[in-house]
């Protein structure tokens, strides 16, 4: 049920004509994925998904759409050149994925117990075992923040 909602809104997010509707369908798809994470006992990842994707990324996409859409440029084709080959290759990709998954014998055996990883354990591991990746992520986010500001600054001498 949640999977249907997620896949359906993802499909809507890439196929709708109005870009604002695309962004809203994308937020709905992210929310469905967060519910699936919660069903899989990954509480922290689910709430991080809600905070980061539904809260930040979808709003960022919405702002970018509002900044770049010019009403007079609406209309015309919304498909890139070579879209037929794109559809064919995407369908072939899904068929290959499905075939591999359905015929695979390397999947984990069913019947595992539900894991109980608490937020406390995640915090302790972040501060001990994963301290170096945490620092690197902090550096990466800082660099991305500065880079995004510099890239989107107005070009010198433009207009």
């Amino acid at each position, binding site marked *: 049920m949640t999977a249907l909602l997620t896949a359906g809104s993802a499909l809507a997010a890439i196929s709708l004509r109005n870009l604002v509707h695309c962004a809203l369908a994308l937020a709905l798809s992210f929310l469905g994925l967060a519910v699936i994470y919660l069903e899989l006992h990954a509480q922290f*990842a689910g709430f991080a998904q809600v905070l980061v994707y539904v809260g930040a990324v979808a709003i960022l996409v919405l*702002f*970018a759409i509002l*900044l*770049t859409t010019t009403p007079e440029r609406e209309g015309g084709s919304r498909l*890139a050149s070579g879209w037929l*080959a794109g559809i064919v290759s995407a369908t072939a990709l899904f068929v290959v994925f499905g075939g591999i998954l359905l015929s695979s014998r390397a999947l984990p055996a069913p019947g*595992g117990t539900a894991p109980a990883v608490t937020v406390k354990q995640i915090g302790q591991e972040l501060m001990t075992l994963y301290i170096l990746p945490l620092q690197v*992520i902090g550096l990466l986010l800082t660099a991305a923040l500065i880079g*995004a500001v510099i890239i989107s600054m107005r070009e010198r001498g433009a207009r």
Partner: protein
Amino acid sequence: MLTNPVLPYLLLSALLFTIGFAAVVIRRNAIVVLIGIELMLNAANLNFIAFWRFGPHPEAASGLMFVIFSIAVAAAEAAVGLALVISIYRHYRTANVDAANSLKG
């Protein structure tokens, strides 16, 4: 055929990845292309969570850690990507990926 409990999640992940890939190769608008990239990253995250939940060692939090770091990297990617789209839009007055075909401008 859907006897293994991990299989529906993997199929959903494959479907999400395919939808994202289709958005990248089909649509003209650069923002929809970025939406497709986000969907593909989310499909990878779903795979991590599913294999962590049904894998042989669910008591280790490594799968969750991978997803958390992946979400952080995806947030950075979205910020830089949308900044690039806005910059391209300022330069070319369009967000059409077919129109932006020269690096030097």
